[in-house]
């Protein structure tokens, strides 16, 4: 064996620290910390050898860790294993270099209560008679017979294969007793042999799964997909452990431990719904399988004298006395504040699920509430916050994806906690309530328990990149990388680790690749920019485009006949166009976040209204101006509320009508011809036309005698103060809503259309411009003035004949366009300008639509169609009817943007 490590003083220091009692038992955290640091130094001093000896080093580290955490099942054995491993590392036979029991005198006490290593046996046994129950393991010191171990590995592999095969047939037929047996048996034999061989983790794992399967066999536990998942996960971990066993150096085998893996799995197992309490077997030390008197018993014995600090939160030390009311009050207030901060942080988490700070900010309140409620004996609050904390901890550690489902669970937990705190606040006797159960919380805890935790964040893309870098550097062949990627995905480990472990790539190369990857990542990093800066940039670019066209249209410039100038102008135009495109795209965001916020709304609404409603989302990736996204949220909320409350019937009613019990609201977004179309469709009862008509008459909105067509009646629901719902519910029916929706949509220069089929449902369609900063418009001239007509309202333009002009009594001037009569709107009259052509047949007509009516705008000339940047007119002119803003045209002149709705109302006032 080569001498190791390269810097012998480190190793000697480690040996001395470990062997000669400088470390005074588990109380000497400083000494143990030194050992860990020495291990790191050893690993850093000679990375290549350290990589080779990774198994042994890791084992030493793991054992020290569990001593620190007071999780060691047998302290004395752990110390011996450490010494054996370290002795092996420096290439000396353990028995000669390290006295098995260092003399007590040689151990300088470093703590107030020194417990020299050599004396632990007597001390432990004196304090804890239960250790006598552990059969003296003949396998502790001498190495396991390599042949025996080899046989076990072989056999375990076969067993694993058998499990996987039979689990599949069990999945097909969960009742198949033979299949359960066939899965049970391999776990049983693995458990048996691993116990004999001192393979603690394999033993613990297989024992637990064996228990589950035994219960399933006895019909005490149903074979659910969840159970099958558990079995498969356990099989994966078992595979990993067996693999480790094979690749680790012989002395490390004793302590081969995937503790972390097994622990987290067993923890997960505890979260599962277990019908029988006795399934929970304490961590069984090796070779003591049949006598469960190991660590768990030892701990509780010790606990009798003084509470062990590792006592579980829910059964451990709680203040036995009544709760101090003042303390309780402080807690309630502080907890509420903390909960309020969660919703805020959830939002940033939703937009960036990988934001570790945001996860932590959501995690922390639950963590703090859990901590304090444990002291205050508030069992329900403690359990609930603890469970959510666990989920978030998994998310923080990258073991669980921050999915929408997770966020929903967290939000719901927040609500329930708020509710529990309120109850606590109002309860006359908080002490009685503290331990009381809340059915809501109990149901929710079940929901958390059922939460599918297999949803892991995607590591694959990142892994592949490191692999690609290594392939590009010709360090590793592509085939090997592909296998490693596969493996890293299966085991949820970093590809670098897998490659190093399989000795496919040296550590230096992998860390080099990681560094390169980090650089690559940094180069696509994001910068947070204030939105007003972004708006200024977009405006500025708009101005630039306009200034450019002003320059280009300058006649002096046209006189210059220089080829180079022409070429440069083309180049300039290309750059400004690109700049404009980029700056516009910077403000576009997917509509997804807005849509997803509505999922919770629908869930809450259906619960409140006692209906079963699901929200279907389509086109969530459609991009929309971020300024607009905020504006449309409220309208969408109103419309969805309406659908949920007025539209969709109760489950019983739906059943009676032969519809499925659950109603559906479909929310879809798409981009179409320069607009964003948002559809809100439900499969409820549709708009009640008779009711609308009746209500509109009652409210005096329409005369009692009327012939209004359907479409006009639909319009009524947008009338301010109109509500057909007699009963004001918690959800909607306050008479505000649809009029606000319409107003908002119009402010956004969009339109809303309504359709409804009785018994089949209603359908609202919002048509919004892509962005609020720029509109696509037709520039027209009336006299010398220029106006922009938004193309969203424009249907066609035409030159009428004299015969198309009519004057109708009471309705003013009309134009006949394709057999229908439309009111003629003389823009020059409305805006008091001198027209060039007062007669329509000499001028131009622009047919615009407003609602479902069409109007003809009279103009002198069409200048052309162009995109214009909208400029506000300032506060002084914001109430101007008929004009929605101004725009600077290419030649530097100002044009006013027409607001078609305003123009129509101006016209109607004039005629009336």
């Amino acid at each position, binding site marked *: 064996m080569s001498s190791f490590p390269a810097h012998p003083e480190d190793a000697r220091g480690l040996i001395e620290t470990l062997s000669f009692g400088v470390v005074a038992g588990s*109380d000497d*955290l*400083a000494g*143990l*910390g030194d050992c*860990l*640091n020495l291990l*790191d130094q050893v690993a850093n001093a000679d990375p290549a050898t350290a990589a080779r000896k990774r198994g042994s080093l890791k084992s030493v580290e793991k054992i020290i*860790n569990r001593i*620190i*955490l007071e999780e060691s099942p047998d302290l004395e054995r752990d110390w011996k294993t450490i010494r054996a491993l370290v002795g092996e590392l420096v290439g000396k036979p353990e028995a000669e270099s390290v006295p098995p029991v260092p003399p007590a005198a040689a151990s300088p006490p470093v*703590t*107030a*209560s020194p417990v020299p290593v050599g004396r632990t046996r007597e001390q432990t046994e004196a304090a804890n008679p239960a250790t006598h129950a552990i059969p003296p393991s003949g396998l502790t010191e001498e190495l396991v017979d390599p042949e025996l171990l080899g046989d076990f590995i072989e056999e375990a592999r076969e067993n694993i294969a058998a499990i996987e095969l039979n689990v599949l047939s069990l999945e097909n037929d969960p009742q198949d007793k033979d299949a359960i047996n066939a899965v049970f048996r391999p776990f049983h034999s693995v458990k048996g042999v691993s116990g004999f061989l001192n393979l603690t983790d394999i033993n613990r794992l297989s024992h637990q799964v064996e228990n589950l399967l035994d219960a399933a066999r006895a019909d005490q536990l149903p074979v659910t997909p969840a159970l099958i998942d558990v079995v498969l996960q356990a099989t994966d971990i078992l595979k990993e452990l067996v693999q480790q066993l094979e690749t680790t150096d012989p002395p490390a085998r004793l302590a081969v431990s995937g503790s972390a893996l097994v622990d987290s799995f067993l923890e997960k197992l505890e979260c599962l719904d277990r019908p029988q309490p006795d399934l929970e077997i304490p961590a069984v030390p090796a070779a003591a399988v049949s006598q469960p008197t190991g660590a768990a018993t030892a701990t509780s014995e010790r606990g009798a004298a*003084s*509470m062990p*600090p*590792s*006592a*579980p*939160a829910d059964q*451990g*030390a*709680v*203040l036995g006395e009544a709760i101090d009311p003042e*303390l309780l009050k*402080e*807690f309630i207030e*502080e*907890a509420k504040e*903390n909960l309020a901060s969660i919703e805020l942080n959830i939002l940033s988490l939703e937009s960036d699920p990988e934001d570790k700070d945001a996860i*932590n*900010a959501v*995690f*922390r309140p639950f*963590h*703090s509430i*859990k*901590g*304090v409620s*444990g*002291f205050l004996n508030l069992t329900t609050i403690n359990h609930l916050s*603890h469970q959510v*904390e*666990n989920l978030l*901890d998994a998310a923080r550690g990258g073991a669980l994806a921050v999915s929408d489902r997770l966020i929903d669970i967290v939000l719901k937990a927040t609500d329930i906690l708020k509710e529990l705190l309120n109850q606590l606040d109002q309860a006359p006797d908080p002490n009685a309530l503290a331990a009381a159960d809340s059915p809501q919380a109990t149901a929710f805890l079940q929901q958390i328990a059922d939460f599918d935790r297999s949803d892991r964040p995607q590591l694959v893309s990142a892994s592949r990149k490191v692999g690609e870098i290594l392939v590009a550097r010709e360090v590793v062949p592509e085939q090997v990388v592909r296998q490693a990627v596969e493996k890293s995905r299966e085991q949820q480990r970093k590809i670098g680790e897998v490659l190093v472990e399989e000795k496919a790539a040296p550590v230096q190369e992998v860390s080099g690749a990681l560094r390169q990857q980090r650089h690559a990542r940094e180069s696509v990093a994001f910068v947070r920019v204030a939105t007003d800066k972004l708006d200024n940039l977009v405006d500025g670019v708009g101005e630039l485009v306009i200034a450019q066209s002003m320059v280009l249209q300058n006649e002096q410039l046209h006189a210059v006949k220089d080829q180079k100038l022409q070429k440069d102008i083309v180049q300039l135009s290309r750059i400004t166009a690109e700049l404009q495109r980029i700056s516009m795209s910077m403000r576009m965001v997917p509509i997804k976040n807005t849509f997803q916020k509505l999922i919770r709304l629908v869930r809450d609404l259906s619960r409140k209204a006692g209906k079963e409603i699901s929200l279907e989302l389509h086109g969530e990736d459609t991009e929309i101006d971020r300024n607009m996204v905020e504006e449309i949220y409220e309208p969408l909320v109103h419309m969805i509320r309406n659908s949920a409350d007025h539209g969709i019937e109760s489950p019983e009613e739906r059943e009676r009508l032969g519809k499925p019990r659950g109603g559906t609201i479909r929310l879809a977004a798409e981009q179409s011809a320069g607009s964003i179309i948002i559809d809100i469709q439900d499969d409820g009862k549709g708009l009640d036309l008779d009711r609308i008509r009746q209500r509109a008459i009652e409210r005096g909105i329409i005369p009692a005698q009327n012939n209004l067509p359907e479409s006009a009646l639909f319009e009524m629901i947008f009338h301010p103060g109109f509500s057909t719902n007699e009963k004001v519910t918690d959800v909607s029916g306050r008479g505000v809503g649809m009029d606000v929706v319409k107003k908002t949509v119009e402010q956004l220069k969009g339109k809303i259309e309504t359709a409804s089929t009785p018994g089949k449902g209603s359908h609202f369609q919002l048509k919004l411009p892509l962005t609020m900063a720029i509109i696509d418009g037709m520039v027209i001239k009336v006299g010398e003035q220029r106006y922009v007509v938004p193309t969203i309202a424009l249907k066609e333009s035409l030159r009428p004949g004299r015969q198309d002009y009519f004057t109708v009594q009471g309705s003013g001037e009309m134009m006949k366009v394709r057999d229908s009569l439309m009111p003629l709107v003389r823009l020059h009259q409305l805006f008091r300008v001198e027209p060039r052509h007062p007669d329509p047949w000499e001028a131009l007509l622009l047919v615009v639509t407003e609602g479902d009516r069409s109007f003809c705008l009279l103009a002198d000339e069409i200048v052309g169609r162009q995109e214009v940047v909208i400029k506000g007119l300032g506060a002084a002119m914001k109430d101007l009817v008929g004009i929605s803003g101004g725009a600077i045209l290419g030649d530097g002149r100002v044009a006013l943007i027409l607001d078609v709705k305003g123009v129509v109302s101006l016209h109607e006032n004039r005629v009336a």
Partner: protein
Amino acid sequence: MAYKNLNVLVVDDFSTMRRIVRNILRELDFKNIFEAENGKAAIDVLSGQKIDLIVSDWNMPEMTGLDLLKYVRSNDQLKGLPFLMVTAEAQKGNIIEAVKFKVSNYIVKPFTAAILAEKLAKILPAE
């Protein structure tokens, strides 16, 4: 106990938790208890006040308990200061990191006065 004249600094972002720890310390006869709501605030206290013992939470905004520990251990005047880290059962694994940075000991929430006394006996110099 001879602790009563020691100056203890309790660091936690959750004020109820600080109060609970303070109450428990009072039970153990400590008289001089100082508070800080995170690592940064703790450093402020340390710069103006002689402190004999720190009892700190781990997870706090602004500056965590671990960062406070690192600061204390790298400061020549403070490096020997007894430092007790408060942690939760689920986060116990993190303690390894703190041990590497020479935390004096740790205590798992929720704890009683008796457990705290036991821990303090291990890390405070005998008087």
